[in-house]
């Protein structure tokens, strides 16, 4: 059959580029391997030249893959599965990039792309380390390209190509019996997940994958050290790359948190979800490795531990992909990605065991040769406490990994354990202790000297920052209103202690920028990073312990049987229903659902919710703002059923955010009006009762063509002017009417939305009656949750400063190594 209108060349070219990059990475790995092994300089240069050429060819091929896939999405070639599954015509251009990395193939492509860029950087920068380091990177590149190669090896499918056609994937679907299937049936794609239609999602994956990709570089240097038997020489060259990796991973995680905060509805930026944990753990290990590398460069200690940290950071990074993409997490994660099934599972296990095998074999073969200082570190030395800090980071990483890996542990041992009632607390109560230790270490360690610190010198320097930090943190504790007593006094005490420790870190490192680094920014990278780390922790502590649900339901219903972990009754009623036009108290605010709006080009429905805060005594309006949380009924399955997906909206102040999202709304399609009209004979001045109040009839007007010339369209009219008095004290005017034309009645009903009333006028035997219908169908309402987050901006500021510190150090070290 000849299909009409397909664009096959671009996909074939794309797939050719995938194959080319795979072959090129094979050749580059082999050539770099030979270049490393040989001792003859001419031979080394010959192999290196071949390796460079093939690596550059690979880079060009990877760029070609991107161009091909993007033009398939941009031009809406829905014969390709990738475009069909991840994009649609109505999607704004700015989100077409997000379509690229919504799919698994796209995220692997990002990873591959950054490997290419980093590889080019090492060609420029690596000097004698280029060949061994690039061998490892290139080997990883072989594995990564194999994820998108999509070839069958006998019956075994290896990787999945982004360039497959719909009709090849579903050859038996009846749609493809028609040569005009593209024009007739596949006119539009399935679109991008609405949650990903967010500007953070345009930049979060590229940065995060830069972090992922860069983690191989420090590991590759460490392995090169073992391989070339230069057991500590690699550290100096690897330092800037380690800094780059820590910064990129850190910013990547932050952007993910910002996205979660702005477009997910779990009410925060961090939920200890496996997907989040999986990227945090490698970052913790990378930072630990960074510190042991610094120790080694300055003192010669911590040589072996540096190898382990960098190896573990890299291995756990692949493991994180394994956790999130193979479906092994199953029921534990809300947003783990869909599984590719068994093939990806084994594919990733092979990648992990290959690298682990090569590293462990080489490490233990050479272990005895790695220089180790047998003299003990002095307890007053900087390296001693830095190493303790690295250990604390390792322990936090191990703790998080253990709980995140429970589903894997269940699979291996056949158990069925799960984290209990309060998963966040399981993490938080340990992390608050870790924060105390890390805060203190971050504060004092910079003031210690390597090898040995004279006591008087240290006390003199650290005294001022200690006093300042004490004063500030006591002020925060006393006036900060931090009374997070959900878990008792012990946990609250730990929070206050952590606030002191982290404030200490902030103050001590700020002071150190002037006293230690003499205000020279190029030398102060470490202090800036530590300062940012301290600010970040302070932000986390305050925003989490002072986070407040303001949409507490005040209907007064207590839930029997629901207790919080300490046995107190849980006030878990965190949703409030707002009826259109009815102001409802929420925290200090009066919230009113004012209306909604939608736009034909945007599938989302925006709800206008007005917040007003008045001074209780004077009635003066102190705050008034409107939030537009949106919700969206998306097509959920093939039968065309819909499901709700909501995006929050926040009012940002410098010191707090008011955060609102829709948790429930009526589906306009599903509302059936089952209520009936009840008629009451009325005259002017009468009062009629309904379930939530009463209605007074202010006036009944009767008119007909004979008496009133203003009635050109109808023969006669009966109009009732009524006032509805709700039990909530509100009054509403309404004017239902009845017209008659050529003896046929025409009812003009009126609705009072806020009271869910429909009113009509009837006339029977010269008597006027008022018909009242109380119906849920007329009532517009939304159910929402609202939080108040204080000082969340401090958290973002901290992460940015920390990353800036990493970049300053990195720049400084790159310059020094040139």
């Amino acid at each position, binding site marked *: 059959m000849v299909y009409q209108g397909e664009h096959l060349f671009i996909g074939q070219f794309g797939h050719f580029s995938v194959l080319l990059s795979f072959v090129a990475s094979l050749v580059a790995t082999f050539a770099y391997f030979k270049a490393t092994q040989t001792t003859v300089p001419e031979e080394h240069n010959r192999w290196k030249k071949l390796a460079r050429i093939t690596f550059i060819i690979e880079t060009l091929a990877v760029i070609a893959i991107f161009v091909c896939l993007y033009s398939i999405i941009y031009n809406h070639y829905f014969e390709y599965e990738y475009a069909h599954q991840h994009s649609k015509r109505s999607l704004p251009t700015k989100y077409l990039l997000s379509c690229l990395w919504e799919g698994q193939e796209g995220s692997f492509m990002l990873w591959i792309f950054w490997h290419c860029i980093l590889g080019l950087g090492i060609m420029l920068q690596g000097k004698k380390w280029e060949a061994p380091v690039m061998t490892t990177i290139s080997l990883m590149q072989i594995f990564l390209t194999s994820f998108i190669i999509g070839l069958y090896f006998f019956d075994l499918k290896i990787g999945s190509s982004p360039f497959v056609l719909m009709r090849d994937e*579903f050859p038996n679907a009846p749609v493809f019996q028609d040569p005009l299937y593209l024009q007739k049936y596949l006119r539009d794609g399935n679109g991008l997940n609405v949650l990903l239609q967010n500007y953070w999602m345009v930049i979060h994956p590229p940065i995060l994958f830069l972090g992922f990709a860069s983690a191989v570089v420090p590991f590759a240097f460490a392995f090169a050290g073992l391989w070339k038997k230069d057991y500590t020489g690699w550290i100096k060259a690897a330092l800037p790359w380690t800094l780059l990796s820590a910064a990129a991973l850190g910013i990547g995680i932050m952007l993910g948190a910002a996205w979660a905060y702005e477009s997910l509805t779990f009410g925060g930026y961090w939920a200890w979800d496996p997907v989040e944990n999986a990227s945090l753990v490698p970052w913790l290990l990378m930072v630990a490795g960074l510190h042991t590398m610094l120790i080694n460069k300055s003192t010669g200690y911590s040589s072996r531990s540096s190898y382990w940290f960098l190896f573990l950071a890299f291995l756990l990074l692949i493991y994180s992909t394994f956790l999130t993409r193979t479906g092994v997490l199953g029921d534990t994660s809300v947003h783990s990605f869909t599984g590719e099934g068994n093939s990806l599972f084994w594919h990733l296990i092979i990648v992990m065991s290959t690298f682990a095998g090569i590293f462990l074999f080489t490490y233990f073969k050479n272990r005895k040769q790695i220089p180790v200082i047998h003299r003990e570190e002095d307890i007053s030395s900087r390296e001693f406490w830095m190493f303790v800090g690295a250990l604390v980071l390792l322990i936090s990483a191990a703790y998080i990994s253990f709980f995140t890996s429970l589903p894997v542990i269940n699979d291996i041992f056949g158990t069925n354990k799960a984290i209990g009632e309060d998963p966040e607390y399981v993490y938080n109560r340990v992390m608050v202790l870790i924060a105390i230790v890390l805060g203190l270490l971050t504060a004092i360690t910079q003031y210690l000297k390597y090898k040995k610190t004279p006591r008087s010198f240290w006390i003199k320097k650290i005294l001022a920052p200690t006093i300042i930090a004490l004063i500030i943190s006591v002020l925060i504790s006393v006036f900060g209103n931090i009374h997070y007593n959900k878990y008792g006094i012990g946990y609250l005490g730990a929070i206050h202690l952590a606030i002191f420790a982290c404030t200490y870190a902030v103050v001590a490192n700020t002071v150190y920028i002037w006293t230690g680094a003499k205000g020279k920014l190029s030398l102060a990278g470490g202090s800036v990073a530590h300062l940012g780390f301290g600010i970040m922790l302070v932000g986390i502590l305050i925003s989490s312990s002072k986070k407040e649900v303001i949409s507490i339901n005040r209907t007064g*219903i207590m839930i029997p*049987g629901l207790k919080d972990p300490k046995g107190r009754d849980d006030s878990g009623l965190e*949703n409030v229903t707002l009826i259109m036009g009815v102001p409802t108290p929420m925290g200090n605010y009066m919230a009113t659902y004012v209306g909604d709006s939608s736009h034909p080009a945007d599938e989302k429905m925006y709800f206008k919710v007005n917040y007003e805060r008045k001074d209780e005594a004077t009635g003066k309006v102190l705050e008034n703002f409107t939030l537009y949380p949106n919700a969206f009924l998306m097509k959920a*399955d093939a039968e065309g059923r819909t499901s709700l997906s909501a995006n929050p909206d926040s009012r940002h102040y410098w010191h707090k955010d008011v955060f609102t999202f829709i948790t429930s709304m009526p589906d306009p399609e599903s509302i059936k009006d089952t209520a009936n009209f009840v008629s009451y004979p009325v005259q002017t001045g009468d009062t009629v009762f309904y379930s939530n109040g009463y209605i007074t009839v202010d006036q009944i007007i009767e008119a007909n063509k004979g008496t009133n010339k203003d009635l050109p369209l109808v023969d006669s009219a009966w109009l009732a002017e009524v006032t509805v008095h709700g039990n909530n004290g509100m009054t509403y005017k309404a004017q239902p009417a009845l017209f008659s034309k050529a003896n046929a009645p025409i009812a003009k009903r009126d609705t009072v939305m806020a009271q869910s009333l429909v009113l009509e006028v009837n006339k029977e035997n010269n008597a006027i009656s008022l018909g009242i219908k109380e119906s849920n169908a007329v009532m517009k309402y939304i159910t929402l949750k609202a939080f108040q987050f204080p000082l969340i901006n401090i958290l973002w500021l901290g992460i940015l400063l920390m990353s800036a510190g990493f970049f300053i150090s990195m720049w400084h070290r790159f310059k020094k190594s040139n």
Partner: protein
Amino acid sequence: MKKIHIVTLVIIAAAIAYMLITLSKDLTTYDTIASAKQKQGKFIHLIAQLDRSKDIEYNPVVDPNFLVFYAVDSLGGKTKVVYHNTKPPELEMSERIVMKGKMNGDVFECKEILLKCPSKYKDDPLQQKKALEYKMQD
């Protein structure tokens, strides 16, 4: 032995001891409805499906934090579920429900619901196939 080794050992030992002490408290199990009914008042995870033969009771205008539905599991166990929160929008079309909470008599007091829905698997080949057939009928 070096000081740093002692510190290392102490920190690791303390961490392990802490984890072991708290582990039993933090961990819970996945249960069936039948085994959950034996564990009255204990916090567990229940894996079940929505019982479509019974009505879902939810009226946000009256109380947005009150949802009642019935669940049935693969072994045929049935239970009433009370959830003091909003109705998850995809409840009706869920294929599987993971519920965290406690059995209280014949009622499961649910604290958290995770839904496994076809919408989360729009890349799932089976769903895609269905979608293609659906397009044909348009």
